[in-house]
């Protein structure tokens, strides 16, 4: 391994600009003549808009335009779409209601934009917005996914009776029913997977600019996938032809899924920039972000796990209601279906699985992918069931897991996925050793002497990453392919630019991707630049989400590098007057086998461009190659997280006293960056388990709508984390990468709740397990505690 190659903990190339305050986030960009836009949002969760009077707002100082949904419709700007078709059990397509970028006629959630003001300054835009008079006829609202399908519930969209978007299923119901009928033991759980707000630290932002000379639009945007944004805004919204729209995603300050989607605000900034003839800038405020960014999770599930003799799992069934909010966001339909039910086999050899999912509308902010997206929900169902079952069966939770682990690969689950490789017991053994599970009983006794309750919880999770084989996802309803592209451009001096369709918003691609190039071409890492996030530079790409940039994005770079190397060998053969088949390339040197002839990488690069040693008939000048890589399977990162908690029964407050994570991510490019990804994922999972909750009142007002109300994990809420790995290289891609971005968020919630319920000896505890919730659960279980 070289100091900057694959496997080295290379310090990040992108850090210098961030630590010196020289990052360029969208809000840091100021366009000549730019104006500012303010979105006036519905204060009501469900209301008819009977009239909007903008006359006095238009006379306010600095105002350039006041626009409404009627103006948008008048200009024939298309609706926002959901790009993944799901069919119900009965074969009918999902009920996608129209989603205009500015509400027209009716507002469907508190926060739905109803008008915009464009002014010289943001202050003027805000002041003018206060002069817009909107007459609302307030309608009853529904926010609870478990109640929205009831007869008599307010109907949100005409196209969706009973607010039901689809009733979908996966698996074999008959096989599952048979297994349950003959089960020796059945464990049952009712689970609420709490609604979360992603809250990337950089709020979303957009600048739309229209050039009337060229009729070109440019959008600077906080997006994880600029090309998909361009495609949707061109092909579906109809803003401009695709070749007349450039989307630039500069430095983006975290995404966690929330910046995948195509939102109303960027559409409106583009449209308004043409209307006012000047650039239009929007920067989301945090309170606004709580109402404008897609939320995550929000499932209500009943799940059952059947066992045969000796703790052998025989079947799992689950019925889930998934809240998709007021409109279908860009990929919302795929999250509670193909990214959820397909992972219900966990790490286990489960012969039969059946899952039913009802996706529903409510008068809440739209819900879509948030770090893990469906897989945390699945893992929580499976790992809670397993832990509770172990307690009911009086078995060691480790032994119960071990008995049921998938042990031979490839393994076909009953829910589509074909696990390619893994060693689940190896990760669990290593985690147990690091967590000193053997010493837990003594630690628990010691805690009890101090009047504290200790608990230990496991989560042996699996996820499907490296999203995804295009043909496979196409057959499941995806409107896009999920390959990735790369272009490797070698300069005449031998330095290299890699253009990638992946997008970095904290993941460190400028370093890890350069490590790959440095290793393959034998050139210093500082001679490699990674270019991403601009549709005028990178031809096309599918962006970054679902832990796909290593497994899919880097595989595309490998393919392009192979083509570059092949071409460079041809150049070297002319340069050294040797047969192409005799050229050997190693550590940045071309040699002729069996001779002392050699040429350095930079010499060959130069000769590719000066083209003095070959004719045009023999070889094309230049050294630049592109590749598209379509994965052959999902990848399956898996591992074991062990959480140890201490609870003060007098207050209900939970302290995480130990966290061990042993993950199998396949080949690791940069262990420092991988550890960082795991840390961050765990923090978000712990946040979900202990603190975070998007709470609506019955009228549809978001009660936890600011950082004063929505409890974000802070440094003192988290423990030091012990992170390690085991490695089974992924056989499905050239580097053996599985992906690491979501593991922590997927594994953590079940580990925390399993630990707390182990401590307090009751399963009756919902997330977030706040101090009052734990205190109440301890009190409810007090007779059991007292009896010991």
């Amino acid at each position, binding site marked *: 391994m070289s100091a900057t190659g694959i496997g080295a903990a290379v310090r990040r190339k992108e850090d210098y600009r*961030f630590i010196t305050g*020289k990052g360029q986030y969208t809000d840091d960009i100021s366009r000549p003549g730019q104006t500012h836009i303010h979105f006036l949002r519905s204060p009501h969760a469900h209301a008819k808009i009977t009239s909007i009077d903008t006359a006095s707002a238009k006379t306010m100082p600095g105002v350039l335009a006041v626009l409404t949904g009627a103006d948008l419709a008048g200009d024939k700007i298309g609706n926002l779409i959901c790009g993944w078709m799901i069919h119900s059990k009965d074969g009918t397509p999902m009920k996608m209601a129209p989603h205009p970028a500015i509400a027209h006629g009716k507002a469907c959630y508190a926060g739905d934009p109803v008008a915009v003001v464009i002014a010289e300054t943001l202050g003027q835009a805000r002041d003018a917005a206060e002069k817009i008079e909107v007459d609302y006829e307030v309608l009853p609202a529904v926010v609870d996914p478990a109640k929205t399908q009831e007869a008599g519930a307010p109907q949100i969209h005409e196209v969706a009776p009973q607010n039901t978007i689809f009733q979908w299923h996966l698996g074999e119901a008959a096989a599952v029913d048979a297994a349950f009928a003959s089960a020796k033991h059945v464990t049952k759980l009712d689970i609420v997977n709490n609604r979360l707000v992603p809250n990337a630290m950089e709020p979303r932002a957009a600048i739309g600019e229209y050039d009337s000379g060229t009729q070109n639009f440019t959008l600077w945007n906080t997006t994880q996938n600029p090309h998909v944004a361009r495609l949707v805004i061109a092909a579906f919204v109809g803003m401009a032809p695709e070749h007349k729209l450039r989307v630039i995603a500069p430095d983006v300050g975290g995404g966690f899924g929330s910046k995948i989607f195509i939102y109303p605000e960027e559409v409106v900034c583009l449209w308004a920039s043409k209307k006012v003839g000047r650039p239009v800038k929007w920067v989301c405020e*945090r309170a606004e972000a709580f109402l404008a960014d897609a939320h995550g999770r929000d499932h209500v599930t009943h799940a059952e796990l059947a066992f045969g003799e000796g703790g052998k799992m025989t079947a799992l069934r689950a019925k889930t209601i998934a809240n998709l909010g007021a409109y279908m966001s860009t990929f919302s339909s795929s999250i509670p279906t193909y990214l959820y039910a397909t992972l219900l086999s966990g790490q286990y050899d489960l012969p039969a699985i059946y899952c039913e999912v009802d996706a529903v509308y409510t008068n809440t902010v739209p819900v879509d992918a948030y770090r893990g997206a469906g897989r945390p929900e699945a893992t929580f169902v499976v790992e809670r069931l397993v832990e509770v079952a172990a307690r009911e069966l009086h078995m060691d939770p480790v032994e119960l897991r071990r008995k049921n682990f998938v042990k031979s690969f490839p393994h076909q689950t009953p829910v589509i996925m074909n696990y390619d490789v893994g060693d689940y017991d190896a990760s669990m053994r290593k985690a147990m050793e690091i967590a000193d599970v053997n010493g837990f009983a003594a630690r628990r006794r010691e805690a009890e002497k101090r009047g504290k309750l200790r608990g230990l919880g496991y989560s042996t999770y699996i996820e499907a990453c490296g999203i995804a084989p295009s043909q496979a996802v196409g057959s499941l309803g995806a409107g896009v392919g999920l390959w990735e592209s790369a272009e490797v451009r070698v300069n005449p001096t031998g330095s290299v630019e890699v253009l990638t369709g992946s997008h970095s918003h904290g*993941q460190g691609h400028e370093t890890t991707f350069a490590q790959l190039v440095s290793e393959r071409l034998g050139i210093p890492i500082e001679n490699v630049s990674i270019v991403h996030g601009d549709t005028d530079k990178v031809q096309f790409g599918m962006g970054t989400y679902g832990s796909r940039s290593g497994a899919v994005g880097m595989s595309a770079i490998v393919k392009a590098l192979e083509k570059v190397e092949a071409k460079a060998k041809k150049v070297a053969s002319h340069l050294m007057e040797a047969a192409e088949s005799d050229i050997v390339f190693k550590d940045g040197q071309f040699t002729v086998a069996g001779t002392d002839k050699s040429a350095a990488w930079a010499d060959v690069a130069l000769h590719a461009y000066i083209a003095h040693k070959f004719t045009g008939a023999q070889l094309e000048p230049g050294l630049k190659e592109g590749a598209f890589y379509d994965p052959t399977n999902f990848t399956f990162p898996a591992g074991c997280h062990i959480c140890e908690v201490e609870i003060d029964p007098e207050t209900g407050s939970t302290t995480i006293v130990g966290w061990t994570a042993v993950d199998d991510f396949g080949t690791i490019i940069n262990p420092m*960056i991988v550890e960082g990804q795991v840390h961050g994922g765990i923090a978000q999972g712990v946040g979900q388990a202990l603190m975070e909750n998007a709470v609506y009142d019955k009228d549809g007002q978001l009660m936890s709508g*600011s950082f*004063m109300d929505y409890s974000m994990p802070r440094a003192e809420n988290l423990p030091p984390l012990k992170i390690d790995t085991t490695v089974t290289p992924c056989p499905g891609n050239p580097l053996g990468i599985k992906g690491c971005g979501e593991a922590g968020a997927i594994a953590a919630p079940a580990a925390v709740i399993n630990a707390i319920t182990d401590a307090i000896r009751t399963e009756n505890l919902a997330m977030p397990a706040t101090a009052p919730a734990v205190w109440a659960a301890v009190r409810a279980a007090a007779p059991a505690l007292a009896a010991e």
Partner: protein
Amino acid sequence: MPRVSLTVNGKAVTADVESRTLLVQFLRENLRLTGTHVGCDTSQCGCCVVHVDGRAVKSCTILVQQAEGADVKTIESLAVGDTLHPMQEAFRQNHGLQCGFCTPGMIMTAVDLVARKGHDLDDKTIREELEGNLCRCTGYHNIVKSIAAGAKAMAATTTAQAAE
């Protein structure tokens, strides 16, 4: 419009501003010092921390007029030429940042923390002192490590400067 005069990163600045202008807006929009970020609207996230007369202040929390005559330092002032401040270097060495958005505020808070609590900072102290700074990427693990290392490195730098 009221006129304000203050010193920012060693330079005297005077400007006419709307009276509602926050210090962070003045830094970002008037002076184009965009390293200071805005991550919330309730003084919770700490992305906007700068030093005002040597103390860490959330620049979204005060009007620029309240900084009249003050000496303001932002993230852009820490490095000397190409030489990073020891705290900046510690964040880089310990992978104390991912997306980088909270980082300027974290570093400015950390430098202030060392000034107040010294160079030998334990895990618990650092975590408590970060109560005003949010990060969504790192889980804080490497930020805590970075600050502990940066604090020590600042001691070494101070000692070296004293010896010169």
